[in-house]
């Protein structure tokens, strides 16, 4: 569950949030709308810790994360960016990327990152999604198409079962066909879970498709 209380954030003289309150329950899917400069990305940056609030509180499952460093709160949060290239490491293979995302909360760092057992486990999780990704495990992530890289990014964001999933216009940079595929995938993985999902979009057809809960900023 995500709870934001009395959040304030200014950039110079420009006030982005003033006494902003917001709550999203477990398993809820919230679409966030708003013009450029309305603070959509700022909100995501505040939640994930790349920015800190001027005042106010951000609570994830009751834990105050307002000033927790990004890498510490990352275990609660999965984030997918607009740019598909931002979500994975191009020189590592698909499998290595997934293994890296899966070991986010694991302590023993000097074990081999990939092994057959994990590999089977990843494939098992991937195959019901019908993405064909399991046949490209040994390819470099940099060799995937934009759409496939976004699929990989979403899968990586979800593999550790975060409490909150942040989708930052995650289909905006894709062609219509890939967009459709990514939206299908988004639906599949967010239904019937306990994950709270926040999605930023400018696209009204996407808003209608997920029209459970719409918040407009600005």
């Amino acid at each position, binding site marked *: 569950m995500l709870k934001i209380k009395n959040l304030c954030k200014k950039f110079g003289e420009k006030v982005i949030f003033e006494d902003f309150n917001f709550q999203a329950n477990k398993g809820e899917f919230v679409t966030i709308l708003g013009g450029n400069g309305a603070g959509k990305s700022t909100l995501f940056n505040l939640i*994930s810790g*790349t920015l800190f609030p001027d005042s106010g509180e951000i609570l994830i499952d009751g834990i105050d994360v307002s000033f927790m460093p*990004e*890498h*510490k709160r*990352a*275990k609660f*949060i999965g*984030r997918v960016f607009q740019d598909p*290239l*931002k*979500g*994975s*490491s*191009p*020189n*590592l293979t698909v499998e*290595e*990327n997934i*293994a*890296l*995302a899966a*070991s*986010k*909360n*694991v302590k*023993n*760092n*000097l*074990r*081999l*990152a*990939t092994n057959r057992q994990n590999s089977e486990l990843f494939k098992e999780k991937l195959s019901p999604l019908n993405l064909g990704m399991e046949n490209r495990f040994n390819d*470099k992530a940099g060799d995937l198409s934009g759409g496939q890289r976004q699929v990989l990014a979403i899968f*990586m964001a979800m593999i550790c079962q975060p409490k909150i999933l942040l989708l930052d216009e995650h289909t905006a940079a894709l062609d219509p066909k890939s967009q459709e595929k990514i939206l299908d995938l988004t639906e599949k993985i967010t239904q019937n879970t306990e994950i709270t999902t926040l999605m930023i979009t400018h696209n009204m057809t996407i808003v209608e498709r997920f029209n459970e809960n719409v918040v407009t900023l600005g």
Partner: protein
Amino acid sequence: MSIYISTCSQGLIWAILALGIFITFRVLNFADMTAEGSLTLGGAVCAVLISNGINPILSIVISGFAASIAGLITGVLHTKFKIQAILSGVLTMIALYSINIRIMGKANVSLLGKRTVFSTSNQNFAVGLTVCALLTIVLSLFFKTRLGLAIRATGDNEQMMKAHGANTDFKKILALMLSNAFCGIAGALIGQSQGYADVNMGTGSLVIALASIVIGEAMFTKDAILLKLIAVVFGSIAYRLIVFFVLNFGMNPSDLKLFTAVVVAAFLALPNIRKRIVRSAKNVKN
């Protein structure tokens, strides 16, 4: 024949430096100037230890640790104090110049008549090959562990690593320490093989290491990390053979650094020049 073998063994010893630079330059995407200072630091520490009767192998290990501290300092300057990568390295490198003279007590230390790893076995090639093979295997295994993979991904896409909860500052510092440890080990071996450590022994070494990396990459283009490391080793040997031939061909030894710089610049420019040619060829067609 023996001249070729000694040229190759030089290549093997210097390959350790090239492997170290590969960690920063290619894996971490960090132009680390500390290397020239750490190489000398490794040579200086090792020479002083050996002249005080310490076992030469142990001295090499200690030199590696000493040089890793140099990497730690550069890493802290860069990550914690946000000083640019290149400047952090230059600052540590310059500081090391004074420190190296303090360690040696003078500008150079001779190992004449002392027992070194090369005098006990009397086989430069065997020693070079053993150390190089060992370090290559260890490094390639390390890069397949979670930590190693995380370091590679940090160099590749830092933002993604942060979003996945990695402390990227720590990863960078660790990679710099590892890289400089390799430079220190290389310096210790170079000092032992030439019979002395000198405060200027590191000057120009970074470019030699870069030359080895780019030549190696031109020879092999495989993606697997082990093969990339092996390519660096072969690149280092190839560089030594090229130098041997151009010197034999009558090139003035003092022009060697110019030659090396041109080689590195040319190899780094090559892929971009090729792209331009392809692009302009397409333009002509259209």
